[in-house]
């Protein structure tokens, strides 16, 4: 097997972790993990300098598979944990992996405050519109009218637009892409990692085994085809009428502004005491 071509991804996976990973056949989390790793490989970051934090949920099982400093926290609480790590060690590149429920339902309060603070953390929200881990309950992004195990008569809840929420709360880099557009995901995540400030990347993901089956949206391939055929790049939307935009996933970087980053603000505060960053024990 000597001449088996090594994938970029294999170099960053944890060799002492059991593969294949835990996600279902056709689940987009694996695809997105590949895009994230390729973005990191492209930036040639040192592994010791990366801390990947996640909450609870299918997407949050990601950090255990990668060879970085990794932390699998409590449901909805990835961002406060990450804030603690980033404040203590600003030189760490902190990446938060979270799901639509983990980030905007139970973790909503922490999400908006992390956006407000503009702390240099890259948050990747894997939005598969369902609580997959617990078997298919509806989440704040499950389309109204859709089936879930807790909305057997169709979901009556209105829906969050994660990017609007992040922009309104003050995040300085907000983008959306889909798992199918793996190259675009890789590129956007690269830009998000380079951005100094709070960056939110929403990756529209497929959950075929639960969400797909409950709503008859087909298997892995079919749901990815839906992403391919029902999404439009941001630039194209200017020339499109609202009717044409109906039900379309808009992909692209919605916001990218530079604002004083939180750890820098704290460093400025400390500089009045001309104290060097306390030597790490």
């Amino acid at each position, binding site marked *: 097997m000597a001449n088996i071509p090594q994938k970029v991804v294999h170099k960053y996976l944890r060799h002492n972790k059991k593969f294949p990973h835990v996600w279902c056949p056709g689940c987009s989390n694996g695809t997105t993990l590949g895009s994230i790793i390729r973005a990191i490989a492209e930036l040639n970051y040192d592994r010791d300098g990366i801390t990947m934090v996640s909450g609870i949920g299918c997407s949050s099982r990601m950090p255990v598979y990668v060879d970085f*400093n990794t932390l699998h926290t409590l449901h909805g609480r990835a961002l406060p944990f990450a804030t603690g790590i980033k404040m203590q060690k600003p030189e760490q590149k902190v990446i938060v992996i979270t799901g639509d429920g983990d980030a905007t339902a139970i973790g909503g309060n922490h999400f908006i405050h992390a956006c407000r603070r503009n702390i240099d953390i890259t948050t990747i929200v894997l939005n598969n519109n369902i609580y997959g881990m617990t078997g298919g309950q509806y989440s704040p992004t499950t389309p109204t009218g859709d089936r879930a195990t807790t909305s057997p008569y169709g979901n009556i809840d209105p829906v969050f637009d994660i990017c609007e929420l992040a922009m309104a709360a003050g995040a300085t880099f907000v983008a959306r892409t889909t798992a199918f557009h793996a190259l675009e995901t890789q590129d956007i995540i690269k830009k998000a990692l380079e951005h100094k400030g709070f960056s939110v990347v929403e990756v529209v993901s497929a959950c075929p085994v639960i969400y797909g089956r409950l709503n008859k949206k087909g298997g892995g391939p079919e749901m990815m085809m839906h992403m391919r055929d029902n999404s439009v790049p941001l630039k194209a939307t200017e020339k499109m009428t609202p009717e044409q935009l109906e039900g379309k996933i808009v992909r692209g970087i919605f916001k990218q502004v530079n604002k004083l980053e939180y750890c820098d603000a704290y460093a400025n505060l400390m500089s009045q005491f001309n104290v060097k960053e306390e030597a790490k024990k």
Partner: protein
Amino acid sequence: MAKEKKEKVVENMETEVVAEDTRKVVLMQGNEAVARGALAAGLDFYAGYPITPSTEIAEILSEELPKKGGKFIQMEDEIASICAIIGASLAGAKAMTATSGPGFSLMQEGIGFAKATETPCVVVDVQRGGVSTGLPTKPSQGDIMQSKWGSHGDNPAIVLYPHTVKECYELAIRAINLSEKYRTCVTLLLDEVLGHMREAVKLPDISNVRIVNRLRPTVPPEWYKHYDENQKYISPVASYGEGYRFHVTGLAHDALGFPTNKASEVAAQMKRLKRKITHNIRDLVQIESYMMEDATVAIFAVGICARSAKAAIKAAREYGIKVGLLRPITIWPFPDDAVKKMLRDVDTIIVPELNEGQLINELHRLTKDKADGKIIPIQRSDGEMITPTHIFRVIKEAH
């Protein structure tokens, strides 16, 4: 106050103060003493949320921490605060938060996470009156059981309980030292009265204070196990960003920190957490035995009630009744041996506490014969303190 013979026989106490302190007397608030003590112990990181009666701790640390390169952040709620200090601790910081009853309830899941992942941190709970939002500016001792059983599942509890402003300072240091030594979350319980009142205090000189830092790994990264089994039970802990690239999860985990469902590995983890307490009772338990040598009546009390008890004892002694006080400084793990000894030596025990019976249950747990006349409760949960005269009256009746 006459210089009464304060016989502070503190059994098996490795005091935090190693040499006679020579500092001048300072008038200091209890909350401030907690903050200063934490700073003396090398606090690096504080995350908190305002709540009466503990906010002064946050205010002082927001002023002091930046001066020494430490980090202060006010989070959006108490849940975020406990999570932030655990994150900071994983990145190598000595981290602390302070709250009161309502916030303490919110922090329970995070506290459980800190204990399960064996990440050092300190939570200060300045108890306030009543249930729910209750009496923010009034004292109570209603969180005693919560400080042990608050978080779900079996998790080790180390809880310290000061009764003077000076002890606030010392126990803040000890809490951080114990959290570093035993890689867990240590809780410091205060009464609102103690947190807010000011007292003349002679603080030990910083150089005399014994500082404990967490055990650092000596093996290179490839051999590092975040929960190494054969290190008996307290294994060295690395920090993020030092080249160790370990994994931490709240799920039941194996020696490498990876999630596991294997019963043997889960049993090993639970046993390790349990042995942290059971194998270290001598080091953890501290109890003050005050005038107990010839006592026929004993008072069992913590915190501010112990202060009232000491005054009552003085009066009762002048009245001719031999009364003593047994005061746990570490309430969890509970000082079973010392209490059993007291139960044998003394025929009546008075238990004053500002709740509807929590400490007293522990005493009942330890008494074989349920001699009802033996243990006399004095309980108040209306926000007012139990006064020395009240205790003195009960002593006389019991005698």
